[in-house]
């Protein structure tokens, strides 16, 4: 990058970044131990049955010892979210499991190992976990891999005792149980949620190695619930109402002030995620969904909405989630997540086995509406080619894109660039820094939506670079 001012880190941020780099390395090392040879790192793990099993079984058992049935029950363990079962030599020669043996709720295959991992903040109750974007296929994020951000741990809430109160500048203050909310006509939409801190380690220099680390704070779900507008009609709004305080029932009693205009436009009081109840980590039993707005505003464990004439200036909209510019002024209420995209394959820490055809693929999204187009470059942005959409663009949802690439075996730099339906074009990091200044990672840490670059070297290894 030309003319980029030098950025300096303070101790806190340096400590945090050092810790996350170490944590990422640990996770990558675990993943590497699953694969037999370096040439398949992070890619094409087929034809490696023994090495895959060595992960499935307890660490320490050798590949030879784990051939079907050899390991004792105590040693057998499945990855999170899976059950361990003996693997028959030939599944066509013996009966499978009886129907219903899973108790009526399925789990993923014992051979699927991807997990989200936690950003190693000092305190594990106020922390976040990243979605494994390099392993996720399609467009929706499995509920169990949806990224998380909590400020006071994950509460356990009995839905039969949970109420959401709607009060303040209203005609009639009311409370609604989850059962009450389910009686209203509902709406179902696929929306992404992105933490405004997604990529905060990447302002100064390429820091994390994998796309899970650089971009893992974005996930997409199908959300079901009641539009706030329906509730607003139910209780009646007073003329003076202009803001709504949303409050969660967690230990942080999380609060954000939301402009009423947004609430009436498309806010949803959601009880459903991907066809079932919202996961506890995502706000069970009720979450405020504010399509396209920074993740922190999507208040989880929603227990209260207070209509007011002014914002409340809560800690999360003053001390945090504000963007300090180089001139010392901070932007406040920077709600929208702007157009962004990232190539998830190939991406950092993968290794291309050799020249040939690769289907480059990634995700693109915009908080302002539909993704209009995505371009891909293999020469660090000198030339751009239109990518193909593998999913139908929907407003404020991710789009899976792809681009057929014949790699000639020479060094290449892969980038993707998203344009949304408002005509906004995803900027470069240099453009963002030129506007927001150079106090990056502890000044304006939020809202990094710059173009991501992955360098492919002649030996096929892929790494995070600023280009």
């Amino acid at each position, binding site marked *: 990058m030309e003319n980029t001012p030098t950025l300096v880190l303070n101790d806190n941020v340096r400590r945090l970044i050092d810790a996350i780099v170490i944590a990422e390395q640990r996770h990558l090392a675990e993943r590497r131990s699953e694969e037999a040879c370096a040439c398949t790192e992070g890619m094409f793990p087929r034809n490696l049955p023994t090495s895959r099993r060595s992960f499935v079984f307890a660490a320490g058992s050798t590949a030879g010892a784990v051939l079907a049935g050899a390991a004792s029950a105590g040693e057998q363990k499945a990855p999170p979210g899976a059950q361990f079962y003996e693997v028959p030599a030939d599944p066509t020669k013996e009966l499978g499991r009886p129907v219903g043996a899973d108790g009526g709720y399925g789990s993923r295959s014992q051979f699927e190992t991807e997990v989200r991992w936690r950003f190693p903040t000092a305190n594990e109750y106020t922390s976040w976990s990243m979605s494994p974007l390099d392993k996720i296929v399609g467009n929706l994020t499995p509920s169990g891999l949806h990224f998380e951000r909590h400020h006071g741990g994950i509460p356990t809430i009995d839905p039969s005792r949970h109420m959401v109160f709607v009060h303040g500048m209203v005609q009639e203050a009311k409370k609604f149980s989850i059962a009450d909310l389910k009686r209203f006509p509902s709406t179902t939409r696929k929306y992404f949620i992105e933490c405004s801190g997604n990529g905060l380690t990447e302002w100064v220099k390429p820091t994390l190695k994998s796309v899970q680390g650089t971009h893992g704070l974005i996930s997409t779900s199908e959300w079901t619930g009641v539009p706030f507008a329906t509730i607003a009609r139910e209780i009646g709004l007073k003329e003076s109402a202009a803001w709504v305080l949303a409050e969660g029932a967690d230990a942080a*009693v999380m*609060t954000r002030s939301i402009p009423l205009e947004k609430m009436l436009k498309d806010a949803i009081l959601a009880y459903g995620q991907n066809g079932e109840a919202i996961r506890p980590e995502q706000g069970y039993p009720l979450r405020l969904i504010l399509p396209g707005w920074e993740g922190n505003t999507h208040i989880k464990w929603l227990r209260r909405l207070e209509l007011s004439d002014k914002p409340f200036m809560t800690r999360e909209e003053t001390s945090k989630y*504000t963007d300090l510019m180089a001139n010392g002024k*901070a932007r406040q209420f920077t709600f929208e997540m702007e157009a962004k995209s990232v190539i998830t394959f190939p991406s950092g820490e993968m290794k291309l086995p050799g020249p040939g055809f690769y289907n480059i693929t990634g995700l693109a999204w915009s908080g302002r509406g539909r993704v209009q187009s995505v371009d891909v470059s293999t020469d660090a942005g000198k030339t751009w080619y239109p990518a193909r959409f593998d999913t139908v663009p929907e407003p404020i949802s991710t789009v899976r894109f792809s681009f057929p690439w014949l790699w000639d075996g020479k060094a290449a730099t892969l980038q993707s660039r998203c344009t949304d339906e*408002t005509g906004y074009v995803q900027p470069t990091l240099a453009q963002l820094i030129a506007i927001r200044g150079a106090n990056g990672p502890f000044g304006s840490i939020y809202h990094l939506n710059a173009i991501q670059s992955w360098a492919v070297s002649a030996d096929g290894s892929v790494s995070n670079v600023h280009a």
Partner: protein
Amino acid sequence: MSMREICRGAACLALALAALPPHALGQTPQGPYGFGSAASQEELADFFAIPADGRRLPSGSGDAARGAKVYADQCAACHGAQLEGNPAKGIGGDKLIGGRGTLASSTPVKTVESYWPYATTLFDYIKRAMPFNAPGSLSDEDVYSVVAYILSKAEMIKATDRMNATMLPKVIMPNRDGFEGDPRPELQLYR
């Protein structure tokens, strides 16, 4: 003759529909649905969120002398004896004071003192979420006191000043005017 005998398939549907009053095809109530129930004053009484004008600050008061005790007992382990923060593993309490004049530098230090625009937010947040391991456990007197202690350590009020619903909103924080609205989309990107 019954309905079943006279109609078949689509013809039957048309007949059945004709028999219904016209609004029966999809009815939205004229007024509210009537779901949910009234929220009583008692139920709402414990909720709070305190905007900058101090509206809804509770009664009671506190000063830095009492606040120093509250702080030592309930906060110092995580935020440091000198309010300098504690980054240790398992703790991670923020630095609470210092950093004035650093915001426009290349190493800005954001604390209650240097960055927070309103003292009312400090009351709201501590009452809401601190101590981190026992949120919501402090009395209003203790919250006023520890707020007074932090503000006096930050030299925003005198050590003898009492904080209450009238005084707290009057405290002018150094970075009160440090915030501006969202200018995005940034016009520079359209040049």
